[in-house]
């Protein structure tokens, strides 16, 4: 019998063990499960302050079966650089040094360390699980919150930001691998991490990670919400890299149909699931649509 990708994922074993203190329906634990399956045991996770700092379990327990080094909010990219360089000079080249953090820690407060490590092309992974707000501290808006979403610091959903195009910004650093992913597409995520693993240099992966308490939807619907993000064109799955003076982007299979706007489901389908968009105004919807167009327009010139 031919081995499928699912067989491989099952055989890879589990590094996220029972006993996390995550919320029911957590997108991040789901994503971490597939990330670690792809990376294997020869992995170090550097975790800045985020939900994962808490859900990895409480001392003296750990529900994650790889080395975890917990670090301060704005330090992860630099700590990982230090670990990698130390392992290198000590003669241990084959270790995956991986920053695993949320959008607050990587898109906002720790952005300088992410950008610095990328610019130096450190041989590390930085993987952001983007739940689109500071969820661990209780749903405050971040630089990755979509326009008009209600958070505890934007309680009326007034439009503040435009959601930083983080994966694209990272691609502009001229690094060898950037990918976007989504917890609703685990095989796509798994394969992207595997591909990154083969690449020497800086790897950035940005995972959309639906969050039931933060986005205010039923905790059984994480995969549905994630899928709708792709089907409405809100979240684009792609891989990109820099080579010989040029940037290239390729759309990942689940997102390919939605390059044609007419094929996308109406954005309202994605929004209506979520309490954070309740009472969403026409202006807000317009702004989100504009943001979606902007994301597609950003990558369009680089699509193969």
């Amino acid at each position: 019998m031919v081995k499928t990708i699912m067989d491989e994922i099952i055989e890879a074993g589990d590094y996220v063990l029972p006993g996390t203190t995550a919320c029911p329906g957590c997108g991040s634990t789901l994503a971490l499960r597939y990330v670690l399956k792809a990376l294997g045991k020869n992995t170090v996770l550097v975790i800045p302050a985020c939900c994962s700092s808490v859900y990895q379990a409480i001392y003296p327990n750990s529900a994650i079966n790889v080395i975890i080094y917990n670090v301060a909010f704005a330090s992860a990219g630099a700590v990982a650089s230090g670990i990698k360089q130390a392992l290198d000079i000590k003669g241990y080249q084959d270790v995956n040094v991986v920053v695993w953090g949320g959008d607050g820690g990587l898109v906002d407060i720790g952005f300088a360390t992410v950008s610095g490590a990328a610019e130096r092309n450190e041989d590390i992974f930085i993987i952001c699980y983007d739940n689109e707000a500071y969820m661990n501290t209780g749903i405050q808006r971040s630089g990755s919150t979509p326009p008009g979403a209600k958070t505890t610091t934007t309680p009326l959903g007034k439009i503040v930001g435009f959601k930083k195009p983080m994966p694209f910004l990272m691609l502009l650093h001229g690094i060898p691998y950037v990918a976007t992913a989504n917890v609703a597409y685990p095989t796509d995520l798994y394969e992207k991490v595997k591909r990154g693993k083969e690449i020497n240099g800086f790897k950035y992966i940005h995972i959309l990670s639906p969050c039931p308490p933060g986005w205010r939807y039923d905790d059984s619907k994480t995969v549905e919400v994630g899928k709708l993000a792709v089907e409405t064109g809100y979240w684009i799955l792609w891989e990109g890299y820099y080579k010989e003076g040029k940037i290239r982007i390729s759309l990942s299979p689940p997102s390919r149909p939605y390059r044609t706007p007419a094929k996308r489901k109406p954005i309202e389908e994605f929004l209506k699931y979520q309490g954070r968009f309740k009472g969403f105004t026409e202006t807000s919807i317009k702004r989100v649509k504009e943001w979606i167009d902007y994301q597609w327009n950003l990558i369009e010139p680089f699509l193969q």
Partner: protein
Amino acid sequence: MKRYDVITGNYSAAWGARLSKVEVIAAYPITPQTTIVEKLSEWVDKGEMKAKFIAVESEHSAMSAAMGASAAGARAFTATSSHGLLYMYEMIAWAAGARTPVVMAVVNRALGPPWNIWSEHTDVLMTRDTGWIQFWASNNQEVLDSIIQAYRVAEDKHVLLPAMVTLEGFVLSHTAMPVTIHEQDKVDSFLPPYNPPHYVVNPMISEPFTYGNILFPWDYAKVRMSIERAMINSIDVIKKAAKEFEEIFGYSHGALIKEENVENADVAIIAMGAVAEEVEAVSEQLRKDGLKIKAVKVRVFRPFPKREIAEIANSVSKIIVIDRDISFGWDGILASHVKAVLHEYKVDTPVFTKIMGIGGDDILPEHIVKAVKDVY
């Protein structure tokens, strides 16, 4: 081969790191520190040092990367000054909590505004409660030697805390003095390679473990208590390191403190850094004038040499503390420590605070003489 050179305090610091065979250096430029890491990066680039140099994007990242390297089992070094030190403050506390024996050279510099690049001790003293050991060098030779000693102390299995070696901006950092650059094999015999006695962040040699995850107050208090114990342990380790250093190299900078002109002294002047060296010179001069002054250099500010200071206080009738720093609304920081020690040891010798040299204002011999004559 042993050699003599006339070099600045900053090059002495670089030599200290080189002779200590540091493996990872992470640094960011700031005046007056910059020439330390410029020299190190030159040696790394030319292959004269087998080390990794990470030119990071901020001091916060310099400390983060140094800490990460140390956690992975490498000997790590960085250097900074003033605003750089304060910018990395969060990671200074984190590196101590993480028990990573990073050594950092800190070139003392005043804080802005207004901009000022000259010497003041307040920057380093603001980090006194973070769990770092602090060595205060008085001359360029002591800068070099203290870095080697700092690794020896920081990496001791009874200590495992980071350590700073401070030197005054320009007064030492950019002033050339004769310095002995030791033979590598002698340094190696004093400072063996770093061999962490615990799991390191390296899955090739350690089992999966989690460092620093959330814990409840009753466990947290134990973790913090272990830092206090390590700090207390470091007292004997510092003394032993100073003694062995003397055996190998033939001279000593003192251990926690160093006293000069002790005979029949009735007034002690206590100071730190390059100021202490000046105090020593002035005390010799004053002795010729018949004033029985003893000069006391506090070489290690953390752990604070309580017993030594109490013994000095018991042996004199007055103490003058010269602080090149100020804690606003309180006192000179060194002086307030001396006063607290005297209270703890029930000694009632009067202590006089003299704050001078703020923001690089020259401390001239006559200023110290005046301070003495004010209270003598």
